[in-house]
Every structure is written in structure tokens, then in C-alpha cells.
């Protein structure tokens, strides 16, 4: 049940216990107990909302920043990652394989603020060798959700 539960709430975290119980074919108590366990174990880390900010009047600029760093003795990449992810404007930090080491997602109100973050905060960190900043021009899909789905039900209304 655990995996199926996670699959459901990953798509819809607002679903209530009663409905979860029905869909999973278990009791409400079992659902509640499992959710509590998942939260305690740190598997469920939050119940966020996916917002298409482009449709609001609020200005947001997203940048993906590739960073090359020198790993530190005894700490590897964790220490430097921590220094970066503690900034609230940093939305995500991933350690990745390939040509560079960390990929950072940054969200700010303007290009200027992003430029400021990169030049003043990021580049000045001691173990950072280089950065490459890419601005997001348009979001087509995020968290598995397509922002402008095209179509409705195209099936014939009744078929055998």
C-alpha cells in the first residue's frame, strides 16, 4: 500500500483520508498511521502546491546554475552544498554526474537579483571554481505536470 499511497499523494496532496482509504481499499486508520509513519521517517517532506507563476502578476525569474567546485577533504560536496542551499532563494540543489558538480535552481524577482546572487554570494565562495547561469524562458512542464494541456476527451461518447 505504501508505494501506491505515495503515488497518489505525490499527484494530489489535498486528498482526504476517507477518499485515500477508499482508493487503496484499506481503513482510514491505516491510512492515517501510514501517513504519520511516512512523515516521521522523512519520506514525506512536505505538501506543496504547484503554481504556474507565469499566469500571475507576480514577476519571477528562474535560473539554473551549473557549478564546479573543489570537494573538501573529509566533507566531500556536502559542506559546500549546505552553504548554498541555506540561501532561501535557492529552490533546489543537486549533486550531479557529468561535466560539473552541482546544479542549483534559483528563483528571484528579477534578472538583476539573480546576477547579484551569482556574483556576490555564489562566486565568492572559496571552493567554487566556476559557474554557468541559464535563465528559464518558459516552463512547459514541472513536477510531472504539463502547464497547458491541449485537449479534452476525444473519444466517441459510447463504444462497445
Amino acid at each position, binding site marked *: 500500500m505504501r508505494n501506491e499511497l505515495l503515488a497518489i499523494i505525490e499527484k494530489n496532496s489535498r486528498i482526504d483520508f476517507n477518499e485515500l482509504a477508499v482508493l487503496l481499499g484499506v481503513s482510514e486508520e491505516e491510512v492515517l498511521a501510514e501517513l504519520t509513519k511516512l512523515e516521521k521517517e522523512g519520506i514525506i517532506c512536505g505538501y506543496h502546491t504547484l503554481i504556474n507563476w507565469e499566469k500571475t502578476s507576480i514577476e519571477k525569474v528562474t535560473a539554473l546554475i551549473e557549478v564546479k567546485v573543489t570537494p573538501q577533504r573529509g566533507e566531500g560536496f556536502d559542506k559546500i552544498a549546505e552553504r548554498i542551499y541555506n540561501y532561501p532563494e535557492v529552490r533546489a540543489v543537486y549533486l550531479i554526474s557529468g561535466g560539473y558538480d552541482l546544479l542549483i535552481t534559483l528563483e528571484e524577482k528579477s534578472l538583476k537579483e539573480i546576477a547579484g546572487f551569482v556574483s556576490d554570494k555564489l562566486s565568492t565562495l572559496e571552493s567554487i571554481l566556476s559557474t554557468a547561469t541559464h535563465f528559464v524562458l518558459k516552463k512547459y512542464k514541472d513536477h510531472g505536470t504539463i502547464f497547458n494541456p491541449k485537449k479534452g476527451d476525444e*473519444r466517441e461518447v459510447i463504444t*462497445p
Partner: protein
Amino acid sequence: MRNFLADKITALKPSGIRKFFDIVSEMKDAISLGVGEPDFDTPWHIRDEGIYALEKGKTFYTSNAGLKDLRGEISNYIKRTQGIEYNPDNEILVTVGGSEAIDIGLRAIINPGDEVIIPQPSYVSYEPCAVLAGATPVIINLKAENEFRLKPDELLNAITDKTKILILPYPNNPTGAIMEEGDLRAIAEIIKEKDILVMSDEIYSALTYKEKHVSIASLEGMKERTILINGFSKAYAMTGWRLGYACAPKEIIEQMTKIHQFAIMCAPTTSQYAAVEALKHGDKDVEEMRQAYNQRRRFLMDAFRKINLECFEPYGAFYVFPCIKEFGMTSEEFATRFLQEEKVAVVPGTAFGECGEGFLRISYAYSLESLKLALGRLEKFINKLRQAK
């Protein structure tokens, strides 16, 4: 001018669904729960493979039996899901949907006057296909109290010395019924003893919600007596690609291939390339869809319990088959009024055989949101009917 039409064809009843279709089509804001195909799009990697095949110019006929690679993958698939070994060279035929396989499978074995046993409620094409092949259909009226499974005594009562083949349509459209291994064993014994064949239509085999589907062909001594039919429409959400297949003893496949060769030539090439991808890498998609169907199935059963609507719990396909006998109306009256008064389209059980009287087929190939909306209206409708009594 003379009447040029063939008597055999003019005598065929048009599908009972057609009339209803016309009414629903005119209603713009109706919610339909009447569709017999998945609501999911074909998984992208499968579509992509079809596109790629077109780009590479794979636009010619394939061999009559279907792409060798595809027959090989079908053979692997049946082996890993059912443990049955079919030789891709002469025991597998790729067809235009499971529908074609039903048609030519019957035509390959029927002599005039042979009897074809058809349990109902079941898919609309078995009976006409049997008639067109020159057979006499013998209908078994399945019972709700048996959860619409075929019982050995029902089969025995239907067998005569003219019986040639039994059609075994499980998991079932429209009831959602399944046959488990124990049920099948009892049927297989009779089939062998009475020396008849089985056409096992397993198009919904990937969509079961209790035990994994068992094919009657996997039982001892049954492979040589079974025409197994399956396809890509339901499991992989590929209805429009028109692709199915038949697995059977080579003597039968050989004759079916002749009809297929002359009538069809070969199944669509693009679809065949896409289907290879489906069988190679589609298991995960099938499981995700199966899980979604299962959640909707549980939702519907729970909703029926809450509004006190009688319905046996189905464990296959994507249909529920609730009983509406308490309202003292025919299935067609109920479905028509429900459509007119609450704007929800369901299919009367009678579209799938006379013994579907008193039942409705409700498809759950719809999003949970649509199902919730429709069930709200169903509750309102039956409350109104109950108060009027």
C-alpha cells in the same frame, strides 16, 4: 430496381449501442460513462516508436502473419505472463485488433450448422461473427449470483453433438467478471471430454485486480484446443492503432492466415513497430494504468455501497455492472431516463445480450473527477426514483 442486399446481413441486428449513441451525441453537456476504451493516451515511448517507424520510411506491407520481431515479442510476452510457449513462426498471427481475430478464428473452423457457444452478457461481436461464419450461436445466460462466471453445468447443458467451439470472454466486457484457475479447470475438463475447442478472448488480461489472469490455454491439454486472442488496445491504451493477435495450434493459424491474407493482407505496419516497443518496455505503463483503474473501481464499489445499489464486486476489465431491478424499469428505460434527467450516459446491459436486462454497464475508463460527478448524479437520480415509489 432489385434488392441487392444480402439476406444474411440485412437479418443481422445492428449493435444495440448504436441507438443510444445517437441520443447521447446530441446532448452537449452529458457526462458519458459509456466508453469501452481506455481514457489514457498511448504511452509516449510507444507513440514515439510509431513516429520513428514512419520517419524511417517503414511504410510497406509486413509479412501476412506480422513482423517477425513482433511475433517474437508476443511469444515472449505470453510465455512470461502465462507460461505458454507459442512458436512465433507458425502459431501466432498479428491481426487488425482482437476483433479481426474473433472473426477469422471462427471462419477458419466453422462448417455450416456448427454450433458456437456464447456466454452472455458479453462483447457485441461474437454472435454476429458466428452467424456470418455460418454457425448457429448457442447462448448461455450467465447469472449474477455466480458473479457472471461460466459454471460447468451451464456449459454441459449447452453442448450438443454439433458444438464446435466455446467462446470464453474473460476478463469480461461488460460485467467485469473474471474466471480464476479453479473455474477454468472445471471448464477445461468438459472441453477435453466433449472434444470441442475454446476461443479465449483475453483482451483485458492485463487488467485484473485480484489474482493475475490465468489463460485456459495454460492448463494441461488445452493449448491444442484453444484459440487465444489478445491485443494492445486495452492493456497499452492503443485502441486506435487497431492491433491484436491470435495464438493457436499451427493448423488453425495456417487457415486463419489464409483469410487474413486475402481479406486484410497485413495489420498496419506503423502499429506493429509501436507494438514491439510496447511489449519490450511497456510493463511499467500497464501497471500504472492498472493501479489507476483499480482505484476507480474501489471508488465506484464504495459509492454503490453508500447509495445501496446492488452490484457484485468485479475483478477485471474496467466495467462495473450494477443491478437496477429494484426500480422496476428495463435497463433501456433506466438508461434513457438517467440520460435525459441527469445527463449521464451509461450503457443498458441488454446491449450485451438479453440476460443483461436489469443491469447497466458503467465504464471506469474515466478520471476520478468525472466519476465523482457522475456518481453524484446517480445518487440524486435513484433517490428520486425511490421516493416516487
